[in-house]
């Protein structure tokens, strides 16, 4: 049976056995699936929705969707990849179904400002590369999740899909129902806003 500790150590044969057991309706296999993957899918959902409670809801929705479609699961991809994708979709669906958070700031205040002649208003600052490289992976994940929460939903989702999920521009446009041009513009503005937030966090 698939390892409960680390799914990356599971062999293809372990995974085939697990899938067969899931398709046979084996309760223990479902418990293995949920206990193995739910904790790992939580951060994936949490980057898209803006609270732990909503991320829990998205993970639950994702598993309900996965349970219904396990018979249609194509073994061309791994269970991990399949569940990851379902979780992203579930989180996006949840985000769309919830009312826009009223307290969201405008992204404009996080973008650089310029004089009429195109020169910078503020010369801005940076941070040392060592400040980023010195962070442990988990620290980076926590920092980024916290800063992503500060972006408006439409900026955060584009950034997550393009730069973290590595979806292409066309696919991101289709998933979000906007044009490829809008994806490019939003992504660039979102990266600039995140840069500002990182600068405030990391500059000495």
């Amino acid at each position, binding site marked *: 049976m698939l390892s409960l500790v*680390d*799914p*990356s150590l599971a062999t293809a044969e372990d995974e085939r056995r697990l899938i067969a057991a899931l398709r046979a309706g084996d*309760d223990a296999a*479902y*418990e293995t699936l*949920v*206990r193995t993957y*739910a*904790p*790992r*899918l*939580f*951060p*994936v959902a*949490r980057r898209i929705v803006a609270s732990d409670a909503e991320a*829990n809801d998205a*993970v*639950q929705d994702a*598993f*309900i969707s996965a*349970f*219904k479609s396990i018979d249609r699961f194509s073994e061309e991809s791994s269970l*991990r990849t399949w569940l*990851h994708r379902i979780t992203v979709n579930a989180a996006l669906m949840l985000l769309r179904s919830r009312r826009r958070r009223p307290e969201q700031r405008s992204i404009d205040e996080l973008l*650089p400002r*310029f004089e009429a*002649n*195109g*020169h*910078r208003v503020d*010369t*801005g*600052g*940076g*941070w040392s*590369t060592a400040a*980023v490289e010195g962070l442990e*992976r*988990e620290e*980076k*994940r926590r920092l*980024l999740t916290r800063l992503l929460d500060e972006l408006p939903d439409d900026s955060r989702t584009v*950034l997550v899909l393009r*730069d*973290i*999920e*590595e979806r292409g521009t066309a696919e991101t446009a289709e998933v979000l129902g906007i044009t490829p041009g809008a994806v*490019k513009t939003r*992504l*660039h503005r979102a*990266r*600039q806003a*995140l*840069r500002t937030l*990182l*600068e405030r966090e990391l500059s000495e």
Partner: protein
Amino acid sequence: MSEHVTCKELVDFLDDYLEDRLEPPVRRRFEEHLDACPPCRVYLDGYRDTVRLTRSLCDDTDAGPPAAMPETLIRAILDSRRRS
């Protein structure tokens, strides 16, 4: 775009510059601006670091210690299957 790239133009087209989507003459004007404008160099470095940092988290489903999931949530997920 003007003959001399301004700070605003540089920022507006920064992703095109980094993805190497600019025509060579435009790219040269960008580089001339960067040579002469230390704040834009700092801005570019920070933008590049930002993209690198987010991309470094592109596949952390298996990475690091998994989040602690409430037992009530695990049970709720499993119960939802039994109910369906």
